[in-house]
């Protein structure tokens, strides 16, 4: 099923015309109403009437997260404050939060793109959605909520956390779709199993998981443990929240809703736009947003694009599932390491559960990477040599892919903290 046939399957030529028109409109709005962007454009010697084609985008300036912080809270408003009906912000754990201010029109578009995502996961009017994304300033909860309302599905706004209650609701209301972070879905699966819950009979059919990078092996693990189809969703507070892109049933990349959010991939060092298939930083321009529109926003997310037609019928470009973030990329002894690579390797080893943590230390001049893996009954042997061999096996497989030696440490179950939101995978103790 496709939620918005007209826009999601639009001919590429028509889509590009629409994008160019919307880009021109965006640039003139920004120039007229947002001094932050007017100054940037003047500095770059760009007049809004010069922007006519989507190919003109590459000459426009980028926007970074640091810049958004300098104009906190309302410096990017492109409409009167009276026209803003809702705000969301990032958590601010890494500094001043960034603000997304929505007009009624923005909320409507958000609901539409979220309805597209949920429909991709098979949702329709008869579905019951257990929405375990956090409600509040975080965009996850409200985003799914607006999408579910558009579709007319029944939404259970349980929000994140309180796992016992999540399981009780699951038993009593028999939801068909679960929405939360992928790591929390596994936490629910684990707690449910301890409670004696049989997920093959729970009635769940699909999950829409996002807000953190996850691997294909983790998808398989979730699908097996929860007896569902797992769909990857992408979005970020700065752009609109969840609902920027989502996987269709082909599970071969996430369709970016490019009638609203125009994606580019750039080389994070040079800023040069990269062709299809080349890995780099995702940059998004919000073509239709009214409240806080952004020009070429650098997401820090690493992926690549694919314009090949998709067999699902949608014409929108696909982005590969996130490969990591430019800011959670670890540089260990000069080698770029993404936690998602390590996860992929670990989960290929049958006995290993997806509970791991990376600890980076500096001993003398040398970086040391320790990969902590939680012990479980499948992995355990009562002979030291078997356990040491398992450590060696993991370490040599890591070396095979990363080309650096990692120390593998088996730790007791439940000693790696389980988050009810985003999993904390990295402890970097190196002096800065």
């Amino acid at each position, binding site marked *: 099923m496709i939620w918005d046939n007209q826009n999601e399957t639009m001919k590429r030529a028509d889509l590009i015309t629409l994008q160019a028109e919307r880009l021109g409109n965006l640039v003139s709005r920004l120039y007229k109403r947002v001094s932050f962007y007017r100054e940037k454009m003047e500095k770059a010697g760009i007049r809004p009437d010069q922007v006519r084609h989507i190919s003109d985008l590459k000459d426009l300036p980028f926007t970074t997260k640091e810049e958004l912080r300098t104009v906190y809270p309302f410096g990017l408003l492109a409409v009167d404050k009276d026209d803003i009906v809702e705000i969301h912000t990032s958590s601010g754990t890494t500094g001043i939060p960034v603000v997304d201010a929505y007009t009624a029109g923005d909320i409507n578009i958000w609901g539409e793109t979220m309805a597209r995502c949920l429909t991709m996961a098979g949702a329709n009017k008869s579905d019951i959605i257990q929405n375990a994304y956090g409600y509040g300033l975080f965009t996850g909860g409200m985003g799914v909520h607006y999408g579910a309302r558009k579709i007319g599905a029944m939404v259970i706004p349980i929000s994140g956390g309180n796992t016992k209650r999540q399981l009780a609701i699951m038993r009593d209301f028999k939801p068909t779709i679960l929405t939360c972070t992928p790591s929390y879905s596994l936490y629910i699966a684990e707690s449910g199993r301890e409670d004696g819950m049989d997920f093959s009979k729970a009635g769940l059919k699909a999950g829409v998981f996002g807000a953190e990078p996850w691997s294909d092996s983790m998808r398989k693990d979730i699908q097996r443990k929860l007896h569902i189809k797992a769909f990857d969703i992408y979005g970020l507070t700065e752009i609109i929240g969840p609902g920027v892109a989502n996987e269709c049933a082909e599970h071969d990349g996430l369709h970016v809703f490019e009638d609203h959010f125009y994606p580019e991939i750039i080389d994070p060092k040079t800023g040069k736009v990269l062709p299809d298939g080349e890995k780099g930083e995702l940059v998004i321009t919000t073509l239709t947003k009214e409240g806080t529109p952004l020009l070429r926003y650098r997401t820090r997310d690493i992926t690549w694009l694919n314009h090949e037609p998709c067999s699902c019928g949608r014409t929108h470009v696909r982005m590969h599932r996130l490969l990591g973030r430019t800011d959670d990329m670890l540089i260990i002894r000069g080698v770029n390491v993404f936690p998602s690579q390590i996860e992929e390797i670990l989960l290929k080893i049958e006995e290993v559960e997806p509970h791991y943590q990376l600890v980076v230390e500096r001993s003398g001049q040398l970086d040391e990477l320790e990969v902590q893996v939680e012990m479980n009954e499948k992995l355990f042997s009562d002979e030291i040599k078997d356990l040491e061999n398992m450590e060696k096996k993991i370490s040599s497989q890591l070396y095979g892919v990363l080309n650096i030696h990692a120390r593998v440490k*088996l730790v007791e179950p439940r000693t790696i903290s389980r988050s009810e939101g985003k999993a904390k995978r990295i402890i970097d103790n190196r002096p800065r």
Partner: protein
Amino acid sequence: MMIKQLSIFLENKKGRLAQVTATLAKNKINIRALSLADSADFGVLRLIVNDPDRGAACLKKNGMVVQITDVIAVEISDKPGGLSSVLKLFDREAINLEYMYAFIEKIKDKAIVIFKIEQPTKAIKFLKKEGMPLVRSSVLKEL
């Protein structure tokens, strides 16, 4: 003739062993014998207890990784050459030991040795043939 042994994964950090013994104490499980094998980061605690099934269950409930392993227990005389006589037999029959540990009985002048063996059925068979007294689990319960 197999004896059920509990094998528990422990990280090498403060208080881990104490947590195991406290859990067993709380559940009134008596430890008959123990051995601890370790590497730099972790250890494996092996226990013979009076009620292995209940012991495993209460440790698991406390979040520990526990495995029940089959071992054999042989009664030997508590004097020079006691252990040697059994090991000589193993050697002769090409039986591989994975690990072993021993404890002394309180009343009788005997010691009991716990063996983890690669080929346990073969070992049991010839130990019997050689007249070596194997210890039953019911006996260990009452010691």
